[in-house]
């Protein structure tokens, strides 16, 4: 036992000595990414604290004059090597040089476990600004949400940290000349462009939107000494449709911005146990907030196209265009079609370009032209081609000439109208073969080789040109009280008809209401008789049963109660009810006479029998037609 205690004591001592020597001495180093930096450029300053035990306070930087600084964060690494524990905390700052000269960074003070420590200052030479200070060579392509910039703000986002500029490449344009509207996002934060909260108002303009994958371009720029990630997030080509001064409301963009979470939580996790550059703690300590980014309105002056030199055939095309034409056949038989194709190609609002029509030609039947257009925005300009195809059919043989097509447009670069034309085309129509023999009979279905019709493209069908609303279109009828009122009236008509029908059925036997009530009154009296039976009140019982029975016959036969007698009832019902019922009525009359006027005391059983017989007879008579 003593030996065991000794062993435990030894082990404890060994462990204690190891733990007490596990940490080496605290050391603080300063490190700068570059010792010479031009004005407007940045350097990274790291304060590296080695082997600190206990909590580390935020460093106090006594002198950082001549620089704009912001924190890049704090990280910590702890390692265990051969039973020895070492730690390394790094505080990083980005400094942007503002003025030239020899600068001293520091000294720096920080508290480790409540004790003050000091780090030596660092010398940095700031030289004059380079030739292109506002734009670094670090230009990269990628989406706006590609690697984020460095700073992460507290829960509120400042407008200088992230903002949008909407700008036009021209303040003055001619009608139908494109003005490029670009939205440029500037951010110093980790942000993701989320689209438009409010779309731009572009009344008076034909708008062509460029595909986002072509427009988003990410660069880095310095603006007022701060580094921004800059991205053109959207581009629109605006083609004004009329002259005047227009104000564009460029709308409101939305961005998701990463901000620091709650302060106490942040300070609790003020060191990054996952090491520098790790993404995990960042998401652990931050949250994404949605930020609205309004833009200022823009003014653009749209000038009317000059009247001087305007060609007679000018139809409003603005840009730079080429035109060509062709015919698909040089020789055809008379009566067969020839297709004349005209193509206009170039930069500008190709959708509104009007291809000149083919003028009437003697001997040619001209069908309406069909046109199609293709627009390309790949090069961040609106360009494309429009093709019109006109079918002409020579009515007779001969040589036909398709005259040149003339087209004019206004070129905003040369500020002049340009006229272009195509070449003339000739084709020969040979005489159609005469029908020497009668036409062959139509081929039978077996001789025809058919192919399935294949759909060449899928598109929406054309708009409807007549607006004929059906009679049942419009608001739901079921929401209108009138609808329910009319249906209610129909229901009432059915119900009323059913009631009337029932009354009539009864009324045809005697007098409507009296006959209808006969059974009800009789049953009511029978119920009263039942109560008297339970009370064993013989006289009252027979009197009530008599009233029920006599009253029933009086009502059904429409006679006075005084006129009701056995003979009268038997006579009236002899042909209308079964002999058993008739016998029952006769015996009940006799039983009632005996019960009411006889001197003998009738037992309870007899009263029950009378009650049941009366009840049964009234049920049977209710089902019978007495008239």
């Amino acid at each position, binding site marked *: 036992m003593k030996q065991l205690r000794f062993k435990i004591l030894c082990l404890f001592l060994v462990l204690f000595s190891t733990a007490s020597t596990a940490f080496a001495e605290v050391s603080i180093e300063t490190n700068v990414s570059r010792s010479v930096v031009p004005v407007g450029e940045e350097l990274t300053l790291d304060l590296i604290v080695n082997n600190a035990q206990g909590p580390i306070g935020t460093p106090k930087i006594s002198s950082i004059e001549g620089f704009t600084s912001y924190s890049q964060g704090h990280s910590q690494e702890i390692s265990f090597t051969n039973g020895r524990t070492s730690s390394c905390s790094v505080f990083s700052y980005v400094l942007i040089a503002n003025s030239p000269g020899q600068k001293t960074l520091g000294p720096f003070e920080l508290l480790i476990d409540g004790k003050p420590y000091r780090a030596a200052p660092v010398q940095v030479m700031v030289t004059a600004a380079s030739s292109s200070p506002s734009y670094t060579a670090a230009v990269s392509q990628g989406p706006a949400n590609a690697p984020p910039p460095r700073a992460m703000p507290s829960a509120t986002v400042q407008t200088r940290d992230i903002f949008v500029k909407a700008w036009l490449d021209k303040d003055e344009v001619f009608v139908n000349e494109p003005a490029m509207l670009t939205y440029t996002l500037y951010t110093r934060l980790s942000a993701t462009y989320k*689209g438009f909260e409010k779309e731009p108002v572009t009344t008076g303009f034909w708008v062509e939107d460029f595909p986002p994958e072509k427009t988003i371009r990410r660069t880095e720029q310095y603006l007022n000494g701060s580094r921004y990630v800059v991205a053109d997030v959207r581009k629109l080509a605006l083609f004004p449709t009329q002259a005047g001064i227009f104000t564009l409301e460029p709308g409101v963009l939305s961005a998701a911005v990463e901000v620091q979470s709650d302060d106490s939580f942040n300070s609790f996790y003020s060191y990054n146990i996952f090491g520098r550059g790790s993404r995990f703690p960042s998401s652990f300590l931050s949250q994404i907030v949605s930020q609205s980014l309004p833009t200022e309105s823009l003014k653009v002056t749209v000038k009317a196209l000059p009247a001087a030199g305007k060609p007679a055939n000018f139809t409003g095309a603005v840009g730079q265009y080429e035109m060509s034409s062709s015919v698909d056949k040089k020789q055809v038989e008379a009566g067969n079609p020839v297709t004349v194709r005209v193509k206009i190609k170039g930069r500008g609002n190709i959708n509104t370009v009007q291809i000149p029509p083919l003028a009437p030609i003697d001997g040619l039947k001209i069908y309406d032209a069909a046109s199609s257009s293709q627009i390309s925005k790949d090069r961040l300009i609106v360009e494309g081609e429009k093709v019109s195809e006109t079918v002409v059919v020579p009515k007779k043989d001969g040589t036909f000439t398709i005259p040149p097509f003339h087209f004019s447009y206004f070129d905003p670069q040369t500020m002049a109208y340009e006229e272009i034309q195509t070449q003339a085309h000739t084709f020969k129509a040979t005489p159609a073969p005469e029908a020497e023999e009668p036409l062959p009979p139509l081929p039978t279905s077996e001789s025809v080789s058919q192919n399935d019709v294949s759909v060449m493209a899928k598109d929406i069908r054309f708009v409807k040109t007549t607006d004929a*609303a059906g009679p*049942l279109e419009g608001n739901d009828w079921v929401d209108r009280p009138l609808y329910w009122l009319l249906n209610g009236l129909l229901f009432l008509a059915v119900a009323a*008809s059913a009631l009337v029908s029932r009354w009539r059925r009864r009324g045809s036997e005697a007098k409507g209401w009296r006959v209808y009530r006969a059974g009800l009154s009789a049953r009511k009296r029978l119920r009263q008789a039942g109560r008297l039976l339970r009370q064993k009140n013989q006289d009252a019982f027979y009197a009530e049963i008599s009233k029920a029975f006599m009253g029933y016959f009086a009502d059904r036969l429409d006679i006075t109660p005084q006129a009701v007698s056995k003979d009268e009832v038997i006579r009236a019902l002899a042909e209308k009810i079964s002999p058993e019922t008739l016998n029952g009525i006769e015996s009940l009359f006799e039983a009632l006479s005996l019960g009411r006027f006889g001197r003998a005391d009738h037992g309870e059983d007899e009263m029950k029998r009378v009650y049941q017989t009366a009840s049964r007879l009234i049920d049977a008579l209710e089902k019978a037609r007495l008239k």
Partner: protein
Amino acid sequence: MRIPRGFLLAVFFAGFAAQAHAASVFEQAGEKYSKGDFKAAAGLYEELARKKPTATVYFDLANAQFRLGQKGRAMANYVRAENLRPRDPDIRWNKNVLQGALQDRLEESTSFYLYPVRRLIRAVTMNEIAFLFSSLLALYTLFFLIGRIRLFAWTTPLRRFIFVLLLVCAALGVFKWADTADERVVILDREVFGRYGPSDRETKAFLLHEGALGKVKDESGAWILIALPDKTSGWIPKSAVEKI
């Protein structure tokens, strides 16, 4: 009280002028569309849709918006047109073409035996069911009334058959009402996240793209809870949708 004849004439001509103006705007819109000026055409159709919404106007407006690349708005108006005229082949075709161009494929989960009922109620409008119901009720009333006369006693079986049809029609009306009771919405933003709660901090449930359709199940502030055809549901900002 005697209404002045001049006043009646003025009312008549004002109504006539309004109709003529609407017809003229409709023709202008058609011309703009034909010339490729879809933006102007859409503006005119929108004006018409505000004043006199018909299936044709919604259809044409949707076409113009489709050409302008506004898939969400186009889908909303195709659905409005389809609600008014559900069996119109042009509306169905264009809506299918648009659906084929959307990023989200949302299929309804319907049980096998309810599928024909759903197809039937989607092929008719509430007004058509209401009209049929009223017509059958009127016919039933007529037969009921004349059936009292012995000469028309032969109509009784017919009247009973009409009564059965009346019940079927009423059931259809109830199904239709249940199908259309929830307001429908279409996504207008290019993409929007559906979340598990009405806040940006809530976990993202799914991603929807422009043109996707859903039904409104609840609202809270600037958020609405929508249910997708496959019964998935999530909260999205009201600003990202248009109610149909």
